């Protein structure tokens, strides 16, 4: 029994007559503290899987078991709590609250959790101690993404889900973000799942899951994942 078990996961979107099988019977499992990269072409169903895993979306069928919890069976309220306590999300477009300073954005997340990490500490951790009182608009994209990661980490979640966190960034900045994520997984023992269609990034993962047309094409275990510092694209 793995930390995360996904079995026969299906997600079907009904667009009138047409059925779009975004995820069509996916099975995989992830261990605790693993850094997983989900790889696949656009429209393959990566985001859908992640959303279902993060409790933002519901599966049409199949099982999603996280730390023994059947996520697919959770009620709306339980899903919120699941998101609240167990999940940290990082988006491609940061999604910071513009009206809050960097620190406040982190606090926004940490204040709702039962055992959050100290917001200031996390800010230090992501290297933004100096900029913590700046508003998102005053920060660069990378810095904003760091704030977003800090916000996710501060909740001290079981899972850190990142949907193309480097998508809007240049490779250098992206690399630093990946470093941060790798560090998080390694030092904090947090399970981190990163979506990307950049196969280079896959090298840093402990496990790479290839998705194609809603199905798993390949699951590759990286015995020796490369340091994020060392990759380049």
């Amino acid at each position, binding site marked *: 029994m793995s930390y995360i078990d996904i079995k026969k996961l299906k997600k079907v979107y009904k667009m009138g007559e047409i059925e779009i099988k975004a995820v069509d019977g996916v099975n995989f499992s992830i261990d605790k503290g693993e850094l997983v990269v989900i790889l696949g072409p656009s429209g393959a169903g990566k985001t859908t899987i992640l*959303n279902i895993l*993060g409790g*933002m*979306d519901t599966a049409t069928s199949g099982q999603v078991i996280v730390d023994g919890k059947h996520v697919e069976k959770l009620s709306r*309220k339980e899903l*919120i*709590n*699941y*998101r*609240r*306590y167990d*999940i940290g*999300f990082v*988006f491609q*477009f940061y*999604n*910071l*609250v*513009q*009206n*809050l*300073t960097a620190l*406040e954005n982190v*606090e*926004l*997340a940490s*204040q*709702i959790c039962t055992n959050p990490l100290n917001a200031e500490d996390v800010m230090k951790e992501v290297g933004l101690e100096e900029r913590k009182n700046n*508003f*998102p*608009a*005053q920060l660069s994209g990378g810095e904003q993404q760091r704030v977003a990661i800090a*916000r996710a980490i501060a*909740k001290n979640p079981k899972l850190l889900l990142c949907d193309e966190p480097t998508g809007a960034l240049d490779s250098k900045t992206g690399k630093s973000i990946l470093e941060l994520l790798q560090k998080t997984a390694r030092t904090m023992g947090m399970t981190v799942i990163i979506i990307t269609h950049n196969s280079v990034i896959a090298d840093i993962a402990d496990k790479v899951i290839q998705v194609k047309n809603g199905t798993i094409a390949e699951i590759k275990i990286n015995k020796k994942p490369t340091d994020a510092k060392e990759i380049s694209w």
Partner: protein
Amino acid sequence: MQRKLVGNMKLLIKEALRKIKLTFGRFLSVFFIVALGVGFFAGIRNTSDDMLFTVSSYFADKNLMDFRLVSTLGFTDADVEILKQMPSINDVEGSHYIDCLESSKAVRILGITNKINQLTLVDGRNPKNNKEVLADATVYEVGDELTLNTPELKETKVKVVGTVKSPMYIQFNNKGTTLIGNGKISGFLYTLESNFSTNVYTLIYLTGKDTASLRAYTQEYQASIEKLETKMTDALDQLKMRRYNEIKTEARQKIEDAKQKIEEEKEKYRIELETVKNNLDQTNKKLQKTDKEINEKEYALNQEFKQANQELLLAKKTLAQKTAEYQKNVEKYNQYKAYLECVEYIYAYDHFPDLSKMTDEEIVFYLLNLSEEDIHQFLEYMQQGDFSIELPEIDYNDKEAVKTYLETVFNSEIMQEIRKNIDFTNKEDLLKQFQKLVKDMEIKLDNAKEEIAKASNLLQEKEQFLNKKKKESQSALVKYKKEIETGYKQLEDGYREYEINYEKFEIQFKDAYTKINQQIKQVDEIEKPNIYVFTRKDNAGYEEYKSDTTRVNNISKVFPIFFLLVAALVCLNTMSRMVEEDRGQMGIYKSLGLKNRQILFTYILYATVATIFGSIIGLLLGCTILPNVIYNIYSFMYVLPNLKLENNFFTMIFTTILMFVVTLSITMYTALSVLKNTPASLLRPKAPAKGKKVLIEKISFIWKRLNFSFKVTTRNIFRYKKRIFMTIVGIAGCTALTLAGFGLKDSITGIIKKQFNTITKYKATIVLDHSYQELDKDMKEVLENNGITNPTLIYQELYNYKIKDKNNDVYLVVPSNINEMKQYITLQHRKDKEKVDFSDDGVIITEKMALNLNAGIGDFITIYDTNKKEYQVKVKEITENYAYNYIYLTNTYYEKIFDQKVNYNMVISGIDENKNIDQISESLLNTNKVLNVSFIEDILEKFNDMINNLNKIVLVILICSCLLAFVVLYNLTTINITERIREIATLKVLGFHDKEVSLYVYRETMILTILGALVGLFLGIFLHQFVITSAEMEFIMFQRNINSISYVYAFLVTILFSLIISVFTHYKLKKINMIEALKSVE
């Protein structure tokens, strides 16, 4: 090219429609706010126009007079004809009116006119004869039987066969004033013209030709009326002259006729009297003649009797002489007889010389010479003898004495006679001779005696006859005389009567003549008539209606603008937001090569559709519901037909265009300001509104202590300045409207309680049948036996005062007992509740009247009695009062001002709570000692009706403000949500509970709502003041302040709506799909 454009057009329309579908909530909010703003604005705006239109078309339908002419000398058909000849005059109709009492109420009886002032039958039918009348529908019912106390009608016992309303009298409780009864006309009756005793019209109604097409109350109408009035001047002068001459000639003719009649009568009467006199005179003459005749007869008779008497007397005398002679003869005879005896004696003795031969002296001598004895013997004999000769007592010894005596005897007449008849010489025969002489004498005597007896008998007979005759004629005379006497007496009576009649006749005719002279003088004094020209303005209620519509108009100036403003704000907010949101899309279109105006077209179409449809719906609802509701509210005060919507398209189109222009210009402005940018910059996401530190953060020791969510909220509040403004203005507007609504309700409702619980505490007012100086025991008993408690006598009379030439009612009240009255009427200052006292040098007036007149303590105010006489009174105090206006004064001051004693005519009192007021009223009226009884209970009911109606207006305003509040809040929230959807989605992703998300979003709205509501409460006070002063009536003073609970209500209503919206928002937030929200690029 053309096709392409068309194709583009189609595409753009499609795009616009898609947009509407996509953003249907937003579309709806624009739609509703436009509907609400336009509907309310146009609706309320139109209300006063509709009200005026309804009435003016009613007036036009019923051909309401333009002028009412009243002349001091009345009018005739000739006058009507003259006016009809005027080219600028349309209809002319002469008619009558009289005011009279109908069961102690003053009613006005009018003639039923045909063309002008047509009546509307409410119930029943038109009268067929003089016994049937039409009656005021507000007072009477079909079937009522009335007795009209007037001599000027042919038929005074009439029956109501139909009830009507008249365009002349549109007000429910103000029907004008009169000089009789209580001075107020209580209702109208319409009778056929033929029922009036006189043919002379009391008034003439006129309508103008030009005015027919003009609407009542307009300036054009007023101008036309004024023009017509000047045109009429000549005609009126003509009327005056004509009528003046007519009246004079008529009067003169009448006088002449009367004079002639009197003269004729006088002559007749004079002749009558003369005949009476002549008859009397004749009788007098006859009587006098008879009288004379009788007197003559009496005289003759008397004369006759006199003669007869004389004869009788003479006869008696003769008889007496004869008797006397006879007596003498009898005496002589007796002497002879004595002498015979003497002689016989002497002869017997024989020794005596022959005496016969002796002379007397010889005899005497002889005798003397006789011896004493002889003589003595002789004498003794003589003495002893039965002689009738008296023998003296003489001393027979005295010879001398005897001799004297004898000489006397011998010388005596009888001795002489004897000596003559007897021949003494013949001694033998001497005795015989003697004897013969006596015998002769005896026979002679017997004859005489017989003769005397015979004569005496005759005389007696004669006397008896005379006496009888005399007696007979005397009684006849007495009878005649008596007859004459009565004749005279009758004559005297006749004369007396004649004299009295004559005197009477004189006086009577003198009176008649003075009367005629007076009449002549009066006719000479007749002045040219005054013709008073009255216009519609003088009709009761005509102007009031206008001012009521003005009041509505006043209200419609504030409230709707508020609505429109808020609506415009909402539109602005919504549209600009939409354009902002669409900037990416616009960039795409632009980069695809679409022209600015083509892109603009979508938004214009969007705004147009929302505005036009919103306007149409708003106009449809607003312009029908609002005028109807408000008209119905006012209609309780008026007797009018149902509301006729004028559909003032100008206002409607104006409002729509205004709204359209506002929305469109907002849309265009924002859209153009976006389209100014290059497609590239548009395609780049617009930098989100920057976070900023708020002022409070600088005070870090406070800021640090603040709760996190509060910090967020604070920051959010200040994030969008526009939204703060929008929200506060919108909410404040709604709260202000709501508060004004509640306040209006308070102001209206409050006065009832205040007026009837704290100020006027009596339960009944009773108008007495005549005036009293004090309430006597009898009257008191009558009242108390009929359910009245603690009556106190007052004087109350209706007076007028003027506000800008408009007459307004005020009641003058003089208490007979100030302390008793104070139990029933509280006189105090409104603000400090300090009691107000009476004084003998001024009056206490009610506050509203003081406001109306702008009068303060110490000022003089002018009041008028029903005869328009003017009085100046000094204001000494101003007292709290809400309904009607009163002037309170002491009897001393009353006497000073009015120069007469107070005639207390009314009683105010409590009532027996166990009795039904109808019973009390009926039993009191049955005593015939009171004219009228009214109860506070009834008045309260009336007031409550009025207040209910006003409350309905308030409710309308409340509902509209609530709707507005709703739409504004909805709109703000919707915008807030769409604006911050990513933020919200982020929160959801972070695991915020639904409640937390809602709170996060709504907390700021709530704070802004509270702020707005507070501002609104403040604004509401002013709005309320404005509404109160423009809605207030002259005789009512609304409570000026708003009850504190209303602030709470207004506040809570706003909060409640905010909460309702928050619930709605909560679900909307809950439904937000975070994935979708986050998927799109901002």
